[in-house]
């Protein structure tokens, strides 16, 4: 009778918009992983001895480890010998000295992605570090930031120019043996971003990194390290895309944040890796370890993530609240559609007195999407007066998707308080009917309802990225009416 069915069944599909591939010559090493691979990567990057040793230590430990099996995600075993561990755009061998030296093809790619690398960057006031496959290709605004003593550069550059900072902080938040993927990353990481904000400096602009996997059969293992010294503050955003491919690609990143006394780090992610097609072919395996250390008193670390991409997401941005009165936050929107799987959440480890943490997790599942929230709140014996509040909501579209909640709570100090609220709801046909009865299209209605559901998280994102995130959710959900 009606030309447009108002059921929610798969109100939810649009072609992945970033699925193009850039043809640039790249310098790759052969597939496979051995001690020699690790040495080769380190040599290509001209690394100091201590770093090579650190990598080798990680590699040896990784050999003895097995992939975690406790997460609610399912995938065939990964052949770690069938992956290329280093791929760099060829012309970048010696590293670009300025934007003019960056391959124009590459710049075009970033333009297609909507990344403000040139004047647009200035308008937006965003400093961008762009990581293409394994190598950081351009960092804008470096000079301007240097004036106030901020170091914002690729990880490789930091290794060359600030080895003492790398030596002091690398692996102090996520030790090499932390988990299988973190160990792998530590052994073979190729590049990433490095940020250091000196004491008392508030970073005058949003810092931002875009990651893109381009080359085939390539794993991406980037490593990000952000240090906010005493009284410093910074807001950092990370975005990700990848071309469409039928095979799965591995992305195993590590992000370490260190906040000293009175420092504040806000880390926002908009993750839109290729999720695979409707039947679940292809897509990125996103196995990421992100952790912040509130090392100083009154320090503050906040994670905000909008996860709409990847075939599989395994990710738990966490905060260790060591300093007295330190604050940890986790705001998350995760969307799984079609055959996507996500097992995501956070860990808040309260060590210091009067530490506080807030967790707001919004999970949206559609199609055959599978999603689990997994959150740990640990109140150590020393965490007198510590408080946590967790709110964990799931929204289901259609009846073939699933959402699960696994809260783990460990309290060893009886003055600590932990609150947990959880809800699961379905986008009601009644809500959808109501919006359409007022004149909105079904797609606009779903997008509006979903955005309303995510509002508490979106308001934590920097303004321009909040808009981007809203659009992304709209895109990920629209398309199958009719």
């Amino acid at each position: 009778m009606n030309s447009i069915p108002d059921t929610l069944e798969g109100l939810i599909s649009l072609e992945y918009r970033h699925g193009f591939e850039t043809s640039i010559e790249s310098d790759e090493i052969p597939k496979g992983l051995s001690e020699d691979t690790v040495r080769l990567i380190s040599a290509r990057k001209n690394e100091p001895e201590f770093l090579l040793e650190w990598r080798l230590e990680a590699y040896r430990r990784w050999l003895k480890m097995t992939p975690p099996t406790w997460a609610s995600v399912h995938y065939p075993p990964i052949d770690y010998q069938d992956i290329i561990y280093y791929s760099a755009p060829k012309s970048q061998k010696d590293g670009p000295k300025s934007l003019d030296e960056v391959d124009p093809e590459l710049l075009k790619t970033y333009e297609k992605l909507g990344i403000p690398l040139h004047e647009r960057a200035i308008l937006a006031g965003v400093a961008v570090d762009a990581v293409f496959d394994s190598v950081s290709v351009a960092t804008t605004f470096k000079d301007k930031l240097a004036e106030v003593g901020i170091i914002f550069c690729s990880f490789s550059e930091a290794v060359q120019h600030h080895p003492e900072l790398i030596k002091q902080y690398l692996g102090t938040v996520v030790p090499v043996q932390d988990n299988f993927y973190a160990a792998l990353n530590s052994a073979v990481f190729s590049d990433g971003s490095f940020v250091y904000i000196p004491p008392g400096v508030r970073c005058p602009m949003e810092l931002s990194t875009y990651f893109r996997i381009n080359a085939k059969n390539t794993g991406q293992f980037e490593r990000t390290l952000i240090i906010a010294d005493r009284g410093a503050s910074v807001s950092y955003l990370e975005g990700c895309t990848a071309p469409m491919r039928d095979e799965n690609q591995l992305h195993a990143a590590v992000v370490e944040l260190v906040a000293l006394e009175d420092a504040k780090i806000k880390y926002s992610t908009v993750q839109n890796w290729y999720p695979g097609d409707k039947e679940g072919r292809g897509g990125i395996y996103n196995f990421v370890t992100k952790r912040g250390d509130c090392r100083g008193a009154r320090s503050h670390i906040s994670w905000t993530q909008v996860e709409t991409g990847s075939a599989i997401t395994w990710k738990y941005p966490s905060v260790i609240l060591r300093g007295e009165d330190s604050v940890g936050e986790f705001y998350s929107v995760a969307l799984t559609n079609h055959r996507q799987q996500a097992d995501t959440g956070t860990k808040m480890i309260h060590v210091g007195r009067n530490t506080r943490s807030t967790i707001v997790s919004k999970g949206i599942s559609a199609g055959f999407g599978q999603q689990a929230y997994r959150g740990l709140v640990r109140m150590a014996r020393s965490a007198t007066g510590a408080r946590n509040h967790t709110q964990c909501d799931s929204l289901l579209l259609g009846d073939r998707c699933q959402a699960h909640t696994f809260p783990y709570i460990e309290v060893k100090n009886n003055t600590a308080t932990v609150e947990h609220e959880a809800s699961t709801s379905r986008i009601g046909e009644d809500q959808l009917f109501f919006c359409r009865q007022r004149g909105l299209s079904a797609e606009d209605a779903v997008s509006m309802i979903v955005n309303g559901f995510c509002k508490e998280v979106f308001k934590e994102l920097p303004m321009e990225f909040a808009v981007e995130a809203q659009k992304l959710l709209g895109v990920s959900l629209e398309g199958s009416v009719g």
Partner: protein
Amino acid sequence: MLSIKNLQASVGDKPILKGINLDVKAGEVHALMGPNGSGKSTLSNVLAGRENATVTGGSVTYQGKDLLALAVEERAREGIFLAFQYPVEIPGVGNVYLLKAALNAQRKHRGLPELDAMDFLALVKDKMKLMEMNESMLYRAVNEGFSGGEKKRNEILQMVVLEPNLAILDETDSGLDIDALKVVSHGVNSLRSPDRAMILVTHYQRLLDYIKPDFVHVLSDGRIQRSGGPELALELEREGYAWVGDATNEGVVAP
């Protein structure tokens, strides 16, 4: 404006509407009464295009178009408005946001320019005065935490902002206190015009004291059993519905 012919609809396998005939002309107000479960909401929903009831027979013509062939939002944009018996909550979506999106979707459909934030706000504030609503309601999530009466008032606010051609009000009076009933009726009456029509679903005469209907129909067992003028409502108030079932004069059409 609206012509319903032998309309039949089922929920699941259960026939609910068993042959409704009703003609509504521009400028008219029709009251639709009848016992609980008789199919009043089902009829309202079928007219608005909700698919939980399946149309199994008959036809509906609206402004010369085959209404049943239109999608829900197309009907809305063509000027059909349904005030819900049980208004829906939408957490996190601001009232003002929904209203603006709805109005602009409808204006676009009619080839009118979309209103910008300033013009829209001026319009909606004006309408809120009419509905004696506090402006803070604009910035709250749609119906979330609203009292029963506030929700009903909010439905009518949407109606006066959208200015529909055919308004179907499903028990908008239920749950309203005496003062609110007056305000809501005032809002509804402000929309009465020779180009508009209304169908008021109600159980109570008191609404009809404020909004004078031209015709009253009694729906029972999926059919309109009786039709008449305003006096029919008074009769019902006195006698109840017990007797309407006897008057199985199928296919009574409003004169």
